[in-house]
C-alpha cells in the first residue's frame, strides 16, 4: 500500500493553490494589492491577534506570495515558509528571528560575499559576532561553538569555490550543542538536495536564482523544518517564553512546528518589512513550474563544460563536484543525488589579467553579478562579488585571484564551447602581445 501524496513535479505545478478558491483562474492570479477588507471589527481584531489565519496587509502576507511560500515549503518538506524581497533579506530575517545582542554565530568562511559582509561588519554593530570556520573543517565547527552560540550557518556548496560542507556531520554538531543548523541551499534548489533530510533545521534560498530561473525577479525565502526543539534549553526565550514583542505570545507553545516561521512573519516581516512584490512571486512561480526540467539541463550542460574546461590548455584548474579529483565525491553523491549543480569555478591561465581579457571577450556568456539564470553567466569574484574582502579574507574563503565563476545556462553546448574557445584564444593572443 503506497500513499497517494503528490510527487515532486506535481508539487512544482500545483502545491499551494486551488483554482476553485480563485474564481477558477488556472494560473495563479497576481494579487496586486496592499491591503484586504475586513469582514467586521471582530474579524479584524482576530486577524491581528493571530486567532485566525488570513491576509491583513501585503507587508505581512499576500495571496500570490502565499502560494509561492506554500509551494516551496511543500518542495523542501518544510512546515512553513516566509518569502522575502531577496535572498539576503531571507538570511537577515532568519538570523534576527533567533538572535539577540551578545549572541554568537558559527559560520562557514566560504559564504557568499554579501552574507559574509553581513556577519563580519553589520551584525557586530548590534553585538552579534561570528566565528568563521573553513567550509570542510567539520571538527572546526565544533571547536568554534561558545556558550552564547545560537546557530551554525553554512552553504552546502561554497560560493564560488564549490567546496562541500559535510552537512549531516555539521548538523549533528549543532544539535549536540542544542542549536539549529541553518543552510543556504540556493545553489541546489529542492530538486538537487533536500537539506531537511540531512539535518538542516532552517533552509534559506535566494529565489532570484535557479528557482525563478530566468533572471527576471528578485526574491528570497526561509523554510522551517518543524522538528527542531526550541524548548530544549533557554537559548531561544523570545520564542519559548511569553514575548513582549507580540502581546505576550509564546510562539512555540501556540504554534509548535511552525513557531519559527510564525515569529519570522509576525515580528520580522512586520518590523523590518522586506516584502517580495506579488508580481515577482508570480514570476518565480512560473520558474518553479519547470524547475526539474531546467535543473536537469543545467546539470547536463555543467557536466559537459567541466569536461571541456578540464581538458582546455587555457584552464589551470576546475572546481566542481564532477571533476575527477574532487575531494568529497562520496559525500557529494550522498547529499546531491539528483545532480551536482551548474556552478563551476575555474582558474584561467595568466591570472587576474587573463581573467579580465577573457570576460571582456565572451559574447554569448553574460558578464554580470547573478547566478542561476537560464543564460550562461560569468564573473571574476575577486574584483566584484567578493571585492569587499581583503586579500587575507579572500584566501580564507579560498578565492584565488585567477578564479572565474561560471553559472552554466541552458544554451546549446556547442555554442557555449565556441564562445569560450574564442575568448580563450583572444586572451592568449593578448597576453602574448603584452609580454
Amino acid at each position: 500500500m503506497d500513499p497517494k501524496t503528490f510527487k515532486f513535479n506535481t508539487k512544482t505545478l500545483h502545491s499551494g493553490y486551488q483554482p476553485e478558491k480563485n474564481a477558477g483562474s488556472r494560473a495563479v492570479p497576481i494579487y496586486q494589492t496592499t491591503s484586504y477588507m475586513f469582514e467586521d471589527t471582530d474579524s479584524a481584531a482576530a486577524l491581528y491577534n493571530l486567532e485566525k489565519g488570513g491576509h491583513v496587509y501585503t507587508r505581512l502576507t499576500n495571496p500570490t506570495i502565499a502560494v509561492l511560500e506554500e509551494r516551496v515549503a511543500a518542495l523542501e518538506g518544510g512546515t512553513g515558509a516566509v518569502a522575502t524581497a531577496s535572498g539576503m533579506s531571507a538570511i537577515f530575517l532568519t538570523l534576527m528571528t533567533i538572535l539577540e545582542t551578545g549572541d554568537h554565530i558559527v559560520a562557514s568562511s566560504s559564504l557568499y560575499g554579501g552574507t559574509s559582509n553581513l556577519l563580519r561588519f553589520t551584525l557586530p554593530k548590534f553585538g552579534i559576532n561570528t566565528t568563521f570556520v573553513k567550509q570542510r573543517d567539520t571538527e572546526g565547527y565544533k571547536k568554534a561553538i561558545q556558550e552564547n552560540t545560537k546557530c551554525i550557518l553554512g552553504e552546502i556548496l561554497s560560493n564560488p569555490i564549490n567546496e562541500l560542507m559535510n552537512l549531516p556531520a555539521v548538523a549533528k554538531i549543532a544539535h549536540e550543542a542544542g542549536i539549529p543548523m541553518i543552510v543556504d541551499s540556493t545553489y541546489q534548489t529542492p530538486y538537487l538536495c533536500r537539506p531537511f533530510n540531512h539535518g538542516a533545521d532552517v533552509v534559506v534560498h535566494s529565489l532570484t536564482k535557479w528557482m525563478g530561473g530566468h533572471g527576471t525577479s528578485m526574491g528570497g525565502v526561509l523554510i522551517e523544518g518543524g522538528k527542531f526543539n526550541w524548548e530544549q534549553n533557554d537559548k531561544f526565550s523570545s520564542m519559548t517564553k511569553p514575548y513582549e514583542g507580540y502581546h505576550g505570545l509564546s510562539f512555540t507553545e501556540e504554534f509548535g512546528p511552525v513557531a519559527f516561521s510564525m515569529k519570522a512573519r509576525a515580528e520580522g516581516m512586520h518590523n523590518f518589512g522586506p516584502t517580495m512584490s506579488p508580481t515577482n512571486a508570480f514570476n518565480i512561480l512560473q520558474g518553479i513550474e519547470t524547475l526539474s526540467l531546467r535543473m536537469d539541463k543545467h546539470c547536463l550542460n555543467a557536466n559537459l563544460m567541466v569536461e571541456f574546461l578540464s581538458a582546455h590548455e587555457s584552464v589551470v584548474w576546475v572546481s566542481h563536484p564532477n571533476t575527477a579529483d574532487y575531494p568529497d565525491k562520496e559525500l557529494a553523491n550522498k547529499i546531491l543525488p539528483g545532480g551536482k549543480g551548474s556552478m563551476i569555478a575555474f582558474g584561467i591561465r595568466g591570472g587576474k589579467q587573463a581573467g579580465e581579457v577573457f570576460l571582456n571577450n565572451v559574447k554569448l556568456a553574460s558578464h554580470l553579478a547573478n547566478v542561476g539564470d537560464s543564460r550562461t553567466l560569468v564573473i571574476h569574484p575577486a574584483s566584484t562579488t567578493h571585492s569587499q574582502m581583503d586579500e587575507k579574507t579572500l584566501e580564507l574563503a579560498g578565492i584565488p585571484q585567477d578564479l572565474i565563476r561560471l553559472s552554466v545556462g541552458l544554451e546549446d553546448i556547442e555554442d557555449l564551447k565556441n564562445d569560450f574557445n574564442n575568448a580563450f584564444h583572444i586572451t592568449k593572443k593578448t597576453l602574448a602581445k603584452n609580454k
Partner: protein
Amino acid sequence: MKLTVNKEEVFASTGGRTFDKKKPLIIFLHGSGFDHTVWMLQTRYFAFHGYSVLALDLPGHGLSKGESLTSIENMAEWVIGVIEVLGCDKVSLVGHSQGCLIGLECAARYPKIIKSLSLMGGSGNMAVNPILLSLAKKNDNKVVTLMMDWCHGPAGHFGTHSIPGMSHMNIGSALMTKKSLKHTLGVDLSACNNYTNGFEAAEKILLPVLIVLGDQDKMCPLKAGKKLTSIIKNSEMHIIKNCGHMMHLEEASKTLVILKKFIKLNYSTS
C-alpha cells in the same frame, strides 16, 4: 501551562491567556499521534473571548511527560483527573478523531461535569486499518505518509493553509514524528481500534453535542459520523464540503464559526 496529574507533568496550551478558574473552561482533545498545536486556529479565539482554554497534550504526547495511555477509557478518566486537579466543576469538551471517543466516554460517565461536547471528524467506533497499526508499532515512518494522505482533503493535498505559507501535510508529519511512533501513534491507534463502547456511550448522552464532519474524510467516513449523530439525542451535525479529516486545520475558519455559534449557545460565558 504545566500541571501535575497522577504524579506526571502535563502540558496544556492556554490559547495565549493565563488560565482563570473563574471563567468557563473549554478543554480541547487532540487526535492520535498529534498534540495541542492542532488547535492553534481555535483556542486563541475562545481564550480571548471570555473562556479559559486548555488544549491538552495527552500523556507521552507533545510537551506532556509520562507514557501514552493504552485505552480510551483510561484517557477519559485521565481528562476527568485533569478537571479535578484544576478544581473546576464543569467543562465543555472539544475533541478531534480519537479525542471524540474520549469525549463520548467522558460525557457518558460524567454528565454532571461535561456541559457540552463538540466532535470533529468523530464516530462511535474507529476500527484502524491493520497496515497502519502494524507500521506504527514498527516505528515505520511510512505510517505517517499514509496518515497524511488519508487525513487530508484537497486543502491538505494541494495546499492553501489558512495561515499563509504553512504546509498542512508537513506540519502533520512533523507533529507525528516528534516522538517515537511506536510509543505515541502506535499506542493511540491501538486504543482507538480496541474501543467498542462508543455507540453505547452515545446513547446515554443527553447534553448538547455538535458533530462536524468533512465530506471527503477517509479516516472517519461521513456515514459513520451520520450514524453517531442519529444516536445522540441532542445533537446537531455540520458537514464541511471539500474537506478531509483535519477540518480544524483544513477549514479552520469554517470550523471556528460553527464551534463559536454552538459553544456560545450551549455554554455561554454569562
